[in-house]
């Protein structure tokens, strides 16, 4: 047998080792981003969720000014955590619209009374139909939409304090 051939297993192993090490060192992101980013908002029209705020349709999101679309639910704990940061965004001048996912008017009203209401319009999506069309798989999620109704960015999970300036910058850039 050729003596060099005997080193082949070690060489192959070295190759796999290199691949493993790269895989381990490389940052891992397992978040599934919506395929809708960069595309126009799908057409929808949702009835209003609470009396104090008007209903929401896709036309409301293409009126020339960049907006945020927040998907939330009264039964969602991280939504409570992000509530103060949404209020901060609103005070900084952001227009925030919302889709309430699988919820009842009474629960939504209670949630807004208790944790604050940063929203301009709230549509209610009882079967998550619009949410799924948007390519969103959970709550909370927030989309940044430019003035023409194109989705610029998708934020998955609750908005933390450190995300607020980033989102404001995205809104600024979308002008």
């Amino acid at each position, binding site marked *: *047998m050729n003596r060099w051939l005997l080193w082949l297993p*070690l060489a192959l192993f070295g190759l796999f*080792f290199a*691949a*493993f090490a790269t895989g381990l060192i490389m940052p*891992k992101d397992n978040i599934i981003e919506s395929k809708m980013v960069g595309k126009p908002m799908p057409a929808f029209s949702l009835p209003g969720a609470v009396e104090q705020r008007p209903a929401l349709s896709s036309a409301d999101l293409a009126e020339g000014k960049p907006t945020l679309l927040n998907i939330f639910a009264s039964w969602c704990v991280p939504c409570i955590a992000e509530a103060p940061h949404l209020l901060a965004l609103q005070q900084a001048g952001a227009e925030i619209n919302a889709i309430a996912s699988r919820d009842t008017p009474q629960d939504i009203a209670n949630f807004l009374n208790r944790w604050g209401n940063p929203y301009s319009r709230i549509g209610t999506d009882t079967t998550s139909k619009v949410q799924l069309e948007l390519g969103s798989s959970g709550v909370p999620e927030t989309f940044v939409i430019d003035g023409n109704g194109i989705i610029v960015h998708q934020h998955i999970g609750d908005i933390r304090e450190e995300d607020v300036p980033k989102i404001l910058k995205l809104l600024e850039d979308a002008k």
Partner: protein
Amino acid sequence: MIAETGLIALWLAGALTLLQFILGAVGLRTDREAYFAAIRPVAIAQGLFVALSFLLLIWLFLRSDMSVKLVAMNSASVKPLLYKFAGTWGNHEGSMLLWVTVMGLAGAFIALFERSLKTRTLVATLAAQAFISLGFYAFLLISSNPFERMFPVPADGQGLNPLLQDPGLAFHPPTLYFGYVGLSVAFSFAVGAMITRDVGAAFAKAMRPWVLGAWIFLTLGITAGSYWAYYELGWGGWWFWDPVENASLMPWLAATALLHSVTVLATRDGLRAWTLMLAVVAFSMSMIGTFLVRSGILTSVHAFAVDPERGSFILALLALYIGGAMALFALRVGTVKEGSRFELVSREGALVANNLLLSVILALVFIGTLYPLFVEAITGDKLSVGPPYFNLATGPLALMLVAVMAAGPLLRWRRDNPRTLLNRISIPILITAASLFALALFTTGMSILSLLGMGLAAGVAIASFAPLWKRNLRRTPMHTYGMVIAHFGIAVALVGMASEASFTEEKLVAATPGDEIVVNNWKLKFEAIEPVAGPNWTALESRITAQYGDGALHPINPQNRMFAAAQTQTSEAALLTRWNGQLYVVLGDGDSEGRWQIRVWWKPFVTLIWYGGILVALGGLLAMVGRLRRGYKQRKQREFAEAML
């Protein structure tokens, strides 16, 4: 105090392992008898201390001692006793402790019972075994102390992953671990033999029971794991080619090849270098499997808690052991004398064919499993390799392997005549042809692979008994029966797989209580949805009665379970087993109009897959007991003859 005692026992065991390694290494260098004599008791003591440590951890879990961090994170006081017990190894630290415990006990076992190997080779083997264990001790003691306390003490624990709260869990992971560790012993034997250049029949005979033992456990582990995934994950499939499943399949493939090549080495003193390489590869596969599962490097349905730091540690150990062994192989195998030769048409030839086919299948599974990793490392794209690749790539080879399996045991060692072979397997060939003909005539919609599989299985089922033909059944050695049963088990499993793939009928309906669902000969009546409660969960249960033809009514009640401790929902499939198959029902979500998603499968003869697996393991057990008994008898006879002289 229990936790502290456990930690002390673990440190002592670690120290003894270091001593075992030093005694072996220095002993081999200086060739001093005193070192050789001391290594056996040290190995035994090491095994005892690590076992004590593991028993104490089990005790902590049974007592629900929430001041121990590991218990608090993975157990809950309301959990049923069985799951408290099984929870000991249902987590990273506990399972690593189980691993070193089994390794320690295996070392003690070798030290106690291995008498046929040359002293130097035995010492080298024990030193190699200690060297492997040392890495895992370092891992446990430095970064994953299972006995760590926590303060403040929580009122109750966080519970165990609900998917794992199943009797299957109590046995599935430890079974695989026994298999992995058995392969580590085979690896140690191979390293020992390479160090002393003592590769021959005696080495093969000493290693064989460990390979057989490991292989039995791996077979059982994979069979149980497949059945667990089948009924617990609620997808109706029995194998998903998921990375974690492949991680258990790859060592099995390597071990199966090793099992057959070690027989050539033990009987005919052939395939020396190849057998050494396979022993190294088999253990590499179990290490790589552990690495893939623990590091989270591949995304898998099996949600293990992952941690990159642990991944790096296992990777470092992997580089040290496998890289080291492969370098040793390259340096030493050139100096190992070539074994005896054989003709192409011979028992050895068939076993080489078996080895080559198994190695190619192993390579294909390995590439398929790691391909996404390579692509991501090079291009950054994420992709996954699915069942179509694996089935297409490995299916035809597996069928060829089965065909070789039918012929191999009927061949003579060294050389045989192709024509007499054809004579011997003419009946199985006829049966295969006849069943292929019948299947093609009377069934529709079978894929080529399933058709061939079913036909081959029929022939192989007969061929597997051919080695017993015209033999005195009472004088036939036990290991021959083992082979017959194991090969028959493969045929049985193959029938199950082909039948499941071809004849499964599926129906997905949105039903309201009162509706009737018909699948094949089954009539299912959806009676009601009712809430039920278990010890640590609540569930919605659908009350369904199933009737096969005009037979009796059977209740079959799938559930949607909600676990209190971790707020997780699982779907509990309900199964109804008949002799000719299984009815499989899953309850999905309800909608606002009171309809419920119900999915029903009728899977003819699906259970044969797992019965086949059990037969294969049983065959392995018979072979192992037979070999051990024969070895013991031969030694007694030799000792008797020496005493007479």
